[in-house]
């Protein structure tokens, strides 16, 4: 090891802790919203978030928005519809990790004078795209052709994110004795939360028997292990903690964030059972000066049930390999040890690539929910983002002011 590789790891600066706050948040209509587009939904969510904050579009001078993978310079199209000439505007492209990264970038931009008030958001129209006609239903693929593998996959009948994540589930089951009952408890818990949320896409109760009766998609995953196809948008408005004090809502402080990318690949090393949530979480905890024991509610990127289980381990809520027993204890339920995805998550509320996890984290920190939806006395929320080629990860820690 030379002096260069021995130099200390640079961490997200603790000087950024609590410098910015989320002052407005909202969603668009969620679920099945025919006759709309991802841009329409994005603007709808931002209008609602501005109303929530008591701000006007002209108060915004930064736009960090993202849309479907085939949308070009999505942020520019959004800003145009908002009638905003933005000082700071871009789209991050890191899959489901992008949305928390946008909030982190907003904090840095505000702290260093690039903008004053930034809207971060994500929108997709996946339900409409995959249900528009029979052809897309059969093809069932929302990615543009240019993004699809040309070799080392399609010739083996290997398609889709479900299969990719299922590899991790199989490996975890092999190493630690995790079972489909454990995955099922995650699906059942989040569905129960969704039933408390009038906005949620899924309205029917789900029992563990229903879970096991669901048809297999790519084993070990059945249909209830998989997140939803949704039309959905969410937005948050970030500004300095000083400005936040004068606004309509109780400000929710951005206490920590971190990112990590296991870019050597999902199939490399142990990445399918120890995700980049480990390093992203450690960085976020250090920035916030907190640890897993301080977290009152977790909003975890739940593209598939297994991804919740492994991230709970990677964030230190239980030891590696003990995620199964941890979820089986009922910990994730409202009223449990770590209420998780309290609005229903991507498995039962709507899939918005982690944006709704941020929205729900903010709402839990405001303590404005009715009792049956509120995590009692919650002071700290941890939120995760995960995506790209299963390897990109981001973590956000929020707290009450």
């Amino acid at each position, binding site marked *: 090891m030379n002096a260069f590789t021995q130099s200390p790891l640079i961490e997200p600066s603790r000087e950024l802790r609590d410098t910015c706050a989320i002052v407005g948040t909202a969603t668009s209509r969620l679920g099945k919203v025919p006759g709309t587009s991802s841009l329409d939904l994005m603007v709808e969510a931002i209008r609602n978030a501005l109303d929530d904050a008591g701000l006007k579009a002209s108060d915004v001078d930064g736009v960090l928005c993202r849309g479907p993978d085939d949308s070009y310079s999505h942020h520019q199209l959004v800003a145009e519809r908002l009638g905003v000439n933005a000082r700071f505007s871009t789209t991050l492209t890191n899959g489901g990790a992008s949305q928390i990264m946008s909030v982190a970038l907003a904090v840095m931009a505000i702290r260093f004078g690039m903008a004053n008030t930034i809207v971060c958001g994500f929108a997709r129209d996946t339900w409409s795209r995959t249900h528009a006609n029979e052809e897309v239903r*059969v093809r*069932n693929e929302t990615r543009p052709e240019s993004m699809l593998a*040309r*070799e*080392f*996959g*399609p*010739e*083996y*009948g*290997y*398609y*889709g994110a*479900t*299969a990719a994540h*299922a*590899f*991790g589930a*199989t*490996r975890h089951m*092999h190493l630690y004795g995790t079972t489909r009952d454990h995955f099922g408890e995650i699906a059942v818990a989040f569905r129960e939360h969704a039933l408390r949320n009038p906005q949620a896409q899924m309205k029917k109760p789900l029992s563990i028997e229903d879970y096991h009766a669901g*048809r*297999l*998609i*790519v*084993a*070990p*995953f059945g249909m209830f292990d998989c997140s939803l196809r949704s039309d959905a948008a969410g937005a948050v408005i970030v500004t300095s903690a000083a400005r936040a004090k004068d606004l309509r809502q109780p400000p929710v402080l951005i206490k920590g964030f971190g990112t990590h990318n296991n870019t*050597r690949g999902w*199939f*490399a090393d142990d990445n*399918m059972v120890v995700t980049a949530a480990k390093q992203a979480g450690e960085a976020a905890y250090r920035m916030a000066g907190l640890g897993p024991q301080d977290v009152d509610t977790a909003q975890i990127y739940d593209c598939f049930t297994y991804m919740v289980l492994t991230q709970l381990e990677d964030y230190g809520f239980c030891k590696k390999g003990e995620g199964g027993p941890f979820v089986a204890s009922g910990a994730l339920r409202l009223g449990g040890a770590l209420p998780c995805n309290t609005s229903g998550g991507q498995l039962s509320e709507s899939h918005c690539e982690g944006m709704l996890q941020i929205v729900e984290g903010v709402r839990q920190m405001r303590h404005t929910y009715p009792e049956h939806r509120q995590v009692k006395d919650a002071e700290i929320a941890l939120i995760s983002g995960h995506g790209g080629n299963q390897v990109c990860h981001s973590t956000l820690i929020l707290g009450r002011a």
Partner: protein
Amino acid sequence: MTETPRKPKPRPAPESLPYWQAAKEHRLALPKCEDCSQFWFPPSRTCPHCLSTNVSFQNVSGRGKVFSFVTFHRVYRPAFAEDVPYVVALVELEEGPRVLTNILGVTHEDVRCEMPVEVVFDDYDEEVSIPKFRPVGA
């Protein structure tokens, strides 16, 4: 009567062509670094271990074990409609790299992590042969 569409033929990237040429000859060959002696997959022209461009394709044993696997029950492409349920596995070769493949010669219920497997070649047409794996001794 409608014909079942053919399964997709690999469309190699330029750096993968030696891999597919070897497969056509029923050899499994992976890129190897002449400087640091490491193998890797998928093919690229720069060693991901030391960034050397002194790279050649070398035959490997074709033996390995199942690192993880999944079983497709859903038909994502009509060409695979008659194959479901079928296994897609990640095989860790003796030389280290992991390759995506199908497991033949065993029912999907009997595939296990760590199961020893060996390569077999599935001739797609006169130009292309696709490396697949079967349990050792099957």
